[in-house]
Structure formats: structure tokens, C-alpha cells
């Protein structure tokens, strides 16, 4: 091919007046005809319109063109159209190149028409220089193993597995625990309708267990994964037993754990200072002691206190529990407290009893009370509930309505700032919170029987290991980092691996379910197509030159390079996107980009530096 005669055809678009209004298109066309190897050049009112496309096809045949250049609007919207036209005329689509003379020339130089014309000539000279060195490329079509593995059996993972299965593909659902349900299993209730958490989970678990396309692997972990989109070799370990498997796609749904607030707000110094999830556990196990007052402290260890982020859900979880207490306190009490159990357990000893001091405290508070103090009804237990917060994150509809209801009930919401954190201490075995009241502008004190610390959700301990195994990134917050926070929320940059639920950041159950189903949609695309056909924009390693230093492996954002048996770098063409990071960083210059070779780029650069004649 390289010895063949180069016959370049150039098509310059007026784009109505979008280009022709500012660039002297006839002059540019005449200039292009003087460039080496250009055997044909013409201009069209609209190259993209039917007559323009027909003119490309006819010219390829009539002038035996073997390279085509279109100078027009932008390749972003129109390159595929012209590539297809070349292909229809029997010309390999990689022998086409686009020169952007609208978005990057006429539109930005509307007030300097002569310079715009000169720039258009420069851009075309560069494009022709590049076209001269273009080589035909073949796109590799690689088959896909029509099966998925979902790692993590919480609500996100179960939702993902179910949807992939219901779209017709076999799924291995791998859960390291002995039961499905994940984080939600620790909870007493979910805030939507304050349903029982176990009851909410049951139909989902039943559907997973009853789905013939889902193979459930409990007590199991994926311990290795090798390959690329459509073709992963994985190892699943179940209680010491290893099993090799092949899947086309991987969905990560490894969940979250609660931050343990060691050293914050007296945590660990009293059994009545608990985290939000521990509180849920107490309620679930019916071990809640009798109380006359309870305080929730929000943002413990979050929003700059240790973790920089807001954990999104804890305000709403605290509100849910506060509402539960306000409306249903009696029924939530520990079995011991309601007399269902006759023995007097140790927990009761720890439970603070009503005392004179408390009553005095209550009277004192009433004087400057900021919340509504009216009772919920004659039968309602007298429980004081306070939520110390920075901002209540009651986003959307339901949370905000709950927030409103909580304010109507006896729930007091006391705002604090990072400069005035509430101080927790224990005096004579009793809990004390000293706090600054923003509205009243004064220091105040309360004696709660229980303090609930709302701490953020954090990444799992094994997130780093999984990140290394699958070569997918984690962000500064420790959570998995999606390909694009705005437009690719459940994709990784690496094709074939997807992410959902709380392993990518705090989310509530509804959001985790939604993300799980979304990841199922994305993951089943390669499965449904049955093949992957990446554009032929790949990097190639010259193994004679490669020193095996591994620099390219580190800089590849798509995990497309690995070391082969002989210690040399090898590119997985199906995973390579042709970004060129590896080629630019290779210290031995052993990596070659097949559509953006050094030769092509240098030819363009040289052409750019030449003066336009004519």
C-alpha cells in the first residue's frame, strides 16, 4: 500500500453561509489543488446533503481517489456520516480525515475574514499532509461470553442481577456473607413508609432465589479477574473452594460500612452513646431502654470533621427514627421494659431512671424551648427528642414532608456550626450535651438518656483490593469512581465493568435499586449485541523494543495493557480506545498508535509551519 500512488480528493463545504460567509471557499479550493497528491478538489454548498455525498461517491470512482478529506463543520457530528459514504464507495473508512473549518475557524474568526481564509488553508494543508500517510485499518470483532457476574448481594446487587437475568442472561451473584441483603439487614426499618427492613427485603430476596437465570453464590468472593469487555476469566472462591468461570461483564455492588466515631462525642465511653446503625440494631432487637430524652447528633465524622463529604442519607434516617420515637415510642421499647420478659437484665441497670435532676432539667428547658412542646396526645409517652444538625438534607419530596411533620411533632431541631460543635461529657454517670443555641445566641445544656451519633457511610475495607484486582479507580473519598459523574454514573472508564449502589457513594435504598437496574442496562448492552467491535484506533507495542518497564500499564486509563509471558507489554485491542497515553509516555518509544502515528502527527506539524503559497 505504501508504494501505491496517493490520490487525494478534497471536499470543502460552504455550510450555507456558516463557512462561506467568512472564509473565501473558492480561493481555498484553488489553493488545495496546488497541494501534493491532491488530484481532485471541489466545494459544495452542503457536503452533508444528498448531492454532496453523491459527489464524494462519484469522485472516488471517477478520479480513483484513495484518500478523502472533507473540510466542514465538526467531526463530532459528521465524521461517521462521511466515513460511511467512503465505505459505500468501496474506500476503507480509515482513509478518510476531517478538517474542522467551521467550529474551529469560521465561527471563531467571524470578524477577521482574511485571517480566517488563511487559517482554513493552513488547516487543509495539515489535513492533506495527514491524509497522505493514512493507512487502511480493519476493525476487530470479538465475541462476548453471554453471562454476567454481580459482586455483592445487597439491594443494588440484587436489583442488578434480577434485571440482567430478566433481560435473558445468566448471572452469577457473588455474596461474601452467608445471607443476601447487605447493609439493609442491620436496619430496623426503611424510611419509605417506615416499613420493616426485613419485610421490605423479603420479596426481593425471594425473586433472586427463584430466578432460574441467577446462580447464587453465598460465602463467596471473586478473587481474580483477567481479561477485557466480553471476555473475563474470573475465579470465585467459596469456603476455600476455587472455581474458574468465564463472564462477559462485571457489576460491582460491594456496598458500604458505617463510620465508627472513635474518640468523637464520647463514643465508647457509655453504652448509651451509639451510632445510628447501632441504634437501629437496638430497636430491631427490642433492646431500647426506657428514656425521657434522646439526642441525635448529625455529621459526626463527616463534612470536614474527618471525611470531607456529606453522607446524604443520615439526616433522613435520624428524622425517620425521631418520628418513630415521637409517634410510637411505647411500642419500640425493649421487651424488658414492657414486661414481656420477667428477668431483670443488665441493660435495665444501665437505663437511666427518671430522677429529680431530670425533672428540674425539663422545667429549665421549658423556659427557653425552641421547639413545639405540646404533647402528641394524652397517651403519648413524654420523650424529648432533639436533633443537632448543620443542615437537614431532606432533599426531594418525601424527606422534606417528613421533615415538616417532625417539626409539627415534638422533635426539636437545633442547628450547630463547625465552630460551635455540641460538647458531650459524662457527669456522675449521666450524659451531658453542652451546646450553643444559634437563634437564642446563648450556651445551653441538656441531659439526654441516649445520644445517637449519625456517622457517614464509608467505603468497604476491601475496596482497595477490588480496585487493584479489576484496575478500576477509587476517588479521594474512598468510594469507587465512575467514568463521569454527570453522564456516565454507573459505568467505569473501562468497558465491561459497571458500578452501582453505596460502593460508589452514599445512597438510599431507592437510589441503590435504581442504580442497580441502571447498571444492569449498561452491562447487558455487550451481552445483547453478542460482540464488541472497537474502532481500529489501537496502540501496538513493538516487543523487540519494549523493555517491560510497565510505565504504559500505569498510565492506561482503560486497563488495556498487560505484561505477557515474556515480560513485554501487550495491548488488548478490544479494550484500547487509542487515547495515546501509553505512546506518549513510553520511554523506549516502543508504542505505535495506528491512526495517530508519530509520522502523521509530525507531518501535520511540519505542514502547519509552512507558509501558504497562493
Amino acid at each position, binding site marked *: 500500500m505504501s508504494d501505491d500512488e496517493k490520490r487525494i480528493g478534497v471536499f470543502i463545504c460552504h455550510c*450555507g453561509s456558516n463557512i462561506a460567509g467568512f472564509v473565501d471557499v473558492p480561493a481555498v479550493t484553488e489553493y488545495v489543488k496546488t497541494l501534493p497528491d491532491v488530484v481532485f478538489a471541489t466545494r459544495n454548498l452542503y457536503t452533508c*446533503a444528498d448531492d454532496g455525498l453523491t459527489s464524494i461517491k462519484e469522485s472516488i470512482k471517477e478520479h480513483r481517489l484513495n484518500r478523502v478529506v472533507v473540510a466542514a463543520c465538526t467531526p463530532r457530528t459528521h465524521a461517521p456520516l462521511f466515513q460511511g459514504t467512503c465505505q459505500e464507495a468501496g474506500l476503507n473508512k480509515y482513509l478518510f480525515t476531517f478538517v474542522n473549518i467551521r467550529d474551529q475557524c469560521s465561527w471563531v474568526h467571524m470578524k477577521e475574514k482574511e485571517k480566517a481564509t488563511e487559517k482554513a488553508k493552513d488547516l487543509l494543508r495539515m489535513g492533506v499532509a495527514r491524509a497522505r500517510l493514512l493507512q487502511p485499518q480493519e476493525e476487530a470483532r470479538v465475541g462476548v461470553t453471554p453471562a454476567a457476574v454481580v459482586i455483592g448481594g445487597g439491594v443494588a446487587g440484587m436489583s442488578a442481577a434480577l434485571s440482567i437475568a430478566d433481560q435473558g442472561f445468566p448471572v452469577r451473584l457473588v455474596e461474601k456473607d452467608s445471607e443476601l441483603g447487605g447493609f439493609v439487614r442491620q436496619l430496623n426499618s426503611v424510611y419509605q413508609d417506615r416499613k420493616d427492613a426485613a419485610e421490605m427485603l423479603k420479596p426481593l430476596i425471594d425473586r433472586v432465589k427463584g430466578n432460574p437465570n441467577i446462580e447464587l453464590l453465598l460465602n463467596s468472593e471473586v478473587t481474580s479477574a483477567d481479561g477485557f469487555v466480553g471476555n473475563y476469566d474470573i475465579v470465585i472462591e467459596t469456603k476455600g473452594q476455587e472455581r474458574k468461570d468465564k463472564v462477559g461483564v462485571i457489576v460491582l455492588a460491594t456496598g458500604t460500612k458505617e463510620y465508627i466515631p472513635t474518640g468523637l462525642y464520647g463514643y465508647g465511653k457509655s453504652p448509651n452513646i451509639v451510632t445510628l446503625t447501632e441504634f437501629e440494631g437496638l430497636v430491631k432487637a427490642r433492646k431500647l431502654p426506657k428514656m425521657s430524652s434522646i439526642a441525635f447528633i448529625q455529621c459526626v465524622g463527616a463534612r470536614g470533621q474527618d471525611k470531607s463529604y456529606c453522607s446524604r442519607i443520615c439526616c433522613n434516617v435520624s428524622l425517620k427514627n425521631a418520628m418513630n420515637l415521637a409517634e410510637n415510642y411505647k411500642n419500640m421499647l425493649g421487651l424488658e421494659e414492657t414486661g414481656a420478659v420477667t428477668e431483670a437484665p443488665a441493660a435495665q441497670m444501665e437505663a437511666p431512671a427518671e430522677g429529680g435532676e431530670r425533672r428540674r432539667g425539663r422545667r429549665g428547658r421549658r423556659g427557653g424551648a425552641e421547639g413545639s412542646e405540646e404533647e402528641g396526645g394524652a397517651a403519648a409517652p413524654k420523650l424529648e427528642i432533639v436533633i443537632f444538625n448543620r443542615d437537614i438534607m431532606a*432533599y426531594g419530596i418525601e424527606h422534606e414532608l417528613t421533615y415538616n411533620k417532625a417539626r409539627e411533632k415534638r422533635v426539636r431541631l437545633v442547628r450547630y456550626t463547625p465552630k460551635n460543635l455540641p460538647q458531650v461529657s459524662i457527669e456522675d454517670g449521666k450524659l451531658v450535651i453542652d451546646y450553643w443555641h444559634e437563634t437564642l445566641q446563648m450556651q445551653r445544656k441538656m441531659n439526654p438518656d441516649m445520644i445517637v451519633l449519625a456517622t457517614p457511610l464509608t467505603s468497604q475495607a476491601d475496596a482497595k483490593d477490588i480496585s487493584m484486582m479489576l484496575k478500576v479507580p477509587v476517588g479521594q473519598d474512598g468510594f469507587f469512581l465512575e467514568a463521569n459523574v*454527570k453522564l456516565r454514573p454507573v459505568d467505569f472508564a473501562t468497558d465491561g465493568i459497571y458500578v452501582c449502589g453505596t460502593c460508589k457513594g452514599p445512597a438510599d435504598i431507592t437510589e441503590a435499586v*435504581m442504580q442497580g437496574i441502571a447498571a444492569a442496562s449498561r452491562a447487558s448492552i455487550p451481552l*445483547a449485541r453478542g460482540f464488541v467491535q472497537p474502532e481500529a484506533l489501537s496502540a501496538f507495542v513493538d516487543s523487540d523494543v519494549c523493555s517491560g518497564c510497565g510505565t504504559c500499564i500505569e498510565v492506561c486509563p482503560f486497563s488495556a495493557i498487560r505484561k505477557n509471558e515474556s515480560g513485554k507489554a501487550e495491548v488488548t485491542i478490544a479494550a484500547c480506545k487509542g487515547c495515546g497515553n501509553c505512546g506518549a509516555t513510553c520511554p523506549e518509544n516502543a508504542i505505535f498508535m495506528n491512526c495517530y502515528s508519530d509520522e502523521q502527527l509530525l507531518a501535520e506539524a511540519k505542514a502547519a509551519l509552512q507558509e501558504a503559497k497562493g
Partner: protein
Amino acid sequence: MEKTESSVLVIGGGVAGIQASLDLADKGVIVHLIEKEPSIGGRMAQLDKTFPTNDCSICILAPKMADCFGHPNINVWTMSEVVGLEGSRGNFKAKVLKKARYVDENKCTGCGECLEKCPTKGLPNAWEQNLTTRRAVYMAFMQAVPRVAIIDPEHCRFLLEGKCGVCKKVCKREAIDYEMKDVEMEFDVAAVVVATGFDVWDPTPSTEYGYGKYPNVITAMEYERIINAAGPTHGHIQRRSDGVEPATMAYIQCVGSRNLKTGHPYCCSVCCMHSTKESMLAREHIEGIKSTIFYKDMRACAKGFNEYVERNKRDYGVEYINSDATVQGQTENGNPIVSFDIGGKSQQREFDMVVLATTLVPAKGNVELAKRLGVELDEFQFFKTLDRTLEPISSSRPGVYLAGYCAGPMDIPESVAMGSAAAAKAMEAVVQREVPS
């Protein structure tokens, strides 16, 4: 790619509908994407930048719009709306009315000749929040997809009086067709995705903000267009009253939302962040500008949001005041006077400009569309989900799925995720339809 016989109807061509369409089309399903406006893109196309990365909104959306329009499996029907839906999951018959555009989409190349010659000028440009004008033949917006002109039949002289015809004369592609009629179409589809987005609340009736009375009180959506390089002022922030660049700006949060009186007691979920972004961008446009945000709760509660707010305070010097705020009058030179409250003490401060973070509300068409689709709305007229916990994608009618803000407040990534999720549910309907036969 092999085409299958199965189709899905996607209603709404914003970012949620685009994502749902692309996911389905990539699996070989034929998608009919129904958009009532002349271009796809939805609300995201109107925004300047996006939080918390400050990516240019249209720059990241436009490639998706182009992919969608150019996809061999997606048929984009603009100027169209669904008028009926019969049948059941797996076997729906959808009736769609495509309104006359009076410009042949196959011939028009969007060159813009007609736009410059049309003599009927000065019509309000709603897409630009009426901050500028358009003519009777116009382009939806600069990056419209399809890039095809449209004639406004309520103002076109030829359509009204049979006189003029200038656009037809100047169109070299013979794309103008005054005879074009509305067309009713019917599609067999296995599932339907509803992704019709939201409307922006009009704050005029709420007199406490002085919108419509004081010219330098504007809405956030107006501000998004003003600060946009392709917008009516080419990205120069200037006051409506005198065109002067502001030195101080205030942002008032929760305008119309979290408010029982307006009928929108919910939180719109995005305005804390877009005001943070807007104040940050103001600083990039005008050096030394002083911005103040009046908020009830700073809901910076998704990935990178809290850090973004902290950066705005630290690096951009934006002041956050935890208080309700209203606009109580203006000074002689047109500075709105903001009234607020610190430590229980009422205060007043004048600003050069005030931006109202107006709430986002269910689209006006929801009631009629819900009736046509046979699905339920919630008490606020968002589309109702089957189960708030485990079925957040399903509507009350099997086979009809929901994506994006039409189902309740959410931001762009959530809309995109929900678009994908709705596509998954629709795909299940497609697959399950094919299995038994």
C-alpha cells in the same frame, strides 16, 4: 447491528430520554423518541455549566444528542406528542401526533439563510427565557438537533395571510413547505418510557420577591442563559435595568419550593448546588464580584457537593447566610433590597442583582399525558411510581416506565441513571414478549 422487530416508545428527548433511547438502541431495539419541542436536548441544553465539575452543559450533551439522532435504531420525532396508548405490556399501540414544522427535515441543512431574511421580527424567544427575540422562522437554538428550522404558524405572514413567502424564496434547498399538515402516526411498541422532565416555576405571583416588579431580580434559568456564551448577552452578566455589570449579587434559595402556600412543599433537590455553581461562575466572569447565598439548609448531599460548597466559600469568597430572604423594594438606582434575618434580628442589604432559585415543578402537560397513557400521578402531579422502595422505575401501568424529573426531583446523574434503568425495564418487556412466541 441486527435489527429486531421490537420497538420501544420513549417520550421526552431530554437527557433521561436520550440515555434510555441510546441504551435500548445499542441492544438492537428500535426506538421511537417522541419530543414535543423542535429539538431534543431538554433542559440540560439550556444550562451553562454543570455542578460540581463545571463542565459546559451543552458541550457534554451535544455528542449524546448527535449520537441519538444519528443512531440507526433511533427514530427521533420532534414536534410530536403521544395522543393515545392501547394494549398492554409487550403489545402496545401508541398513537402519536406530529405537528407541522413547515420545513422539510430531510431537505433543510440548517444553513440559516431564511432566519436572516424573515421580515417578521421581534417575537419572544421562549427558549432564551424571553431575554431576546426571534423571527417567525427560527432555529430552536444554536446547537439544535435536528439542525432544522421551524416556522411559527401563529406569526408567519404567509401562513396567516398568504402573503410574504420570503423564506421559501431564499431557501436554496427548497425545504420550506407551507402546505405541510399535522400527521398522525401509530407505533407497535413493547414498552413505553416516560421522560418528560419539568417546568420552571414562575415567581411572578409571589410578591415577596419582587420578580416582574424590580428589573434586577431575575430567575436562575434567566441567569443560566445570561452567563452562557451562546446566550442573549454572549455571557456578559449585566443588569436588566441599565446594562451595567453588577458588583454584588444575591442568590435566594427555595423560591416557591419548601413552601405550602405555592403548592410545592417539596425540595427541588438541585437549587443549592446550581446557586453555588452560578456564584462561582460569576466570579469567573467578573473579577472581584461579591456574592451572597441566602439558604434554609445547604443541601450539598451527593458526590463532591459538600467539597464544592466549601471550595466556593474558601476560593471564591462567596458568603453563605442561613436565613430566609425576600426582596423588599429597590433603591433609586435599581438595586433590589434584600431583607433577611441573623440571630433573630431582621436586616436589610442592597445588591446590584438578585437571582431567584425558583423551584422546578411538574410539567404542565402531565395531567393530560397521564390520562392518555392511563397512568397515575402523585399528589403534586409528578408521575407516580409503583413502589417507592423497590419499584422506583415502574409507573402504575405495567409496561410504562419512568425516567428523570417527571417522577420527582433529581439531578442530572440521577436522571441519566434512571434513563438507563427505565431502558432495562423496557428491555425486560421486549425480551419477555419474545420468549413465549
